[in-house]
């Protein structure tokens, strides 16, 4: 019998979701998913947790295996109309995601950026805003700075904007639209 990977099991998805909710409510905080999801990547774990046939997904940089698509059951769309868009963080944004509308700001895209690391690196920022007690420092690597510049533009008229989830192989961190990001030092 074929063994089902941990990320497709309801009890694992519940725990992955709780980790996701924790990082979304406390921007800059990272969650370690490796023990929860065996050898699966954090990216696949969070997609398995959030995505089903009701939502659309775009994979700009082919980060997913073709075998994942049938299991995710979602509608495959282009980057400008999908509800969830997965991108490699080192490649600059080349599209306009959905920002929602004034009456329905939840119809905005959730961007999922895959980085080299969300735990350490020479790209350092200070975060502030809801969910953060004062300020929070983060250090990542593998992020194209254009994302931050674009993000600032996309999020300039609250409540419109995009919510970003960043992942590396095993960790996840979130930058909801309310988070203010100030770059303190930047090296690729």
């Amino acid at each position: 019998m074929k063994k089902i990977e941990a990320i497709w099991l309801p009890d694992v998805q519940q725990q992955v979701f709780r980790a996701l909710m924790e990082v979304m409510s406390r921007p800059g905080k990272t969650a370690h998913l490796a023990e929860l999801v065996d050898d699966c990547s954090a990216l696949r774990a969070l997609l398995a947790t959030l995505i089903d046939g009701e939502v659309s997904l775009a994979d700009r940089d082919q980060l997913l295996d073709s075998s994942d698509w049938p299991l995710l059951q979602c509608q495959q769309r282009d980057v400008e109309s999908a509800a969830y868009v997965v991108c490699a963080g080192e490649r600059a944004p080349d599209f306009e995601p959905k920002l929602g509308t004034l009456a329905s700001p939840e119809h905005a895209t959730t961007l999922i950026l895959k980085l080299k690391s969300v735990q350490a690196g020479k790209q350092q920022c200070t975060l502030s805003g809801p969910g953060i007690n004062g300020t929070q420092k983060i250090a990542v690597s593998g992020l194209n700075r254009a994302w931050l510049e674009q993000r600032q533009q996309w999020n300039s008229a609250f409540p419109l904007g995009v919510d970003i989830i960043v992942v590396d192989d095993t960790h996840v961190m979130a930058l909801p639209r309310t988070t203010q990001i100030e770059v303190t030092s930047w090296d690729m």
Partner: protein
Amino acid sequence: MTAMRQAKAVYPFGFLDEYAKKEVRRTVLKAIAIPGYQVPYSSREMPMGRGFGTGGLQLTLSLIGSNDTLKVIDQGSDDSVNAVNLRSFIEMTCEGINTTDVTDEADLIQSRHRIPEKPLREDQLIILQVPYPDPLVVVEPSEDKRKVMHGEADYSRLLVKLYEDIVQFDEITISHRYPTRINHHYIIDPSPIPRWDVPKLHQSKALILLGAGREKKIYAVPPYTDAEPLAFDDVPFRVENFIDQHGKRRACDRCGDTTSFLDEFTSSDGNKVYQCSDSDWCREQLQKKGA
């Protein structure tokens, strides 16, 4: 004994199917990302009437896992009808979870109409059951228009409503469901918590989730987020003071505490009696006195 009566229905963990849970979970993430915005979701039928806390219940069932410890309260008490029924339903459908009456021991708290007296910690989470999520409903009947007003943070008509209160009564007369502005934009109905609990929303250490099952909305106050009750510069917001006719702060009849929110009862001899509304707080104060 018929076979029917012996038959045991088998439900998945958490009663809801995984698609329903996923939808609630996606909605929760959006609610956190847009503090105070009422995110619509397709509230499912639950085996109890809408209006009995189905919004809070769906949140709890979508969030809970077997290693969680849950506390369910209704008006501060673990033993009132709504809390007992919701707790036993969750116990029945979520095998392996722990439940507790002690605020300190719980990591998930589902509540109707109160926030515990004891300040919540970062590792805790409170879910409030909401009957009427939209504070603008008293001034604008059309939801389409209310959504635009919320988006534009246009609350002038709500302020006029409060002003009319002051003109008529010299005081804002809202006792519970006090409109509260979250992160300087959206105004929420914080559920029927008394004014006493409204300041606890401000810069809370714990995440606060609000679920309205009948109205099909989920919204959130993230931790460390500003929450300001609507008021005027010259008429500041105030909470219940529990001062008697002699100018003295009433104490709880049971534990003697003078710092908690009090419920008023009429005793069998016709006198008014005051007791802590938060039963776990009262128990703890009694225990401290005994020690």
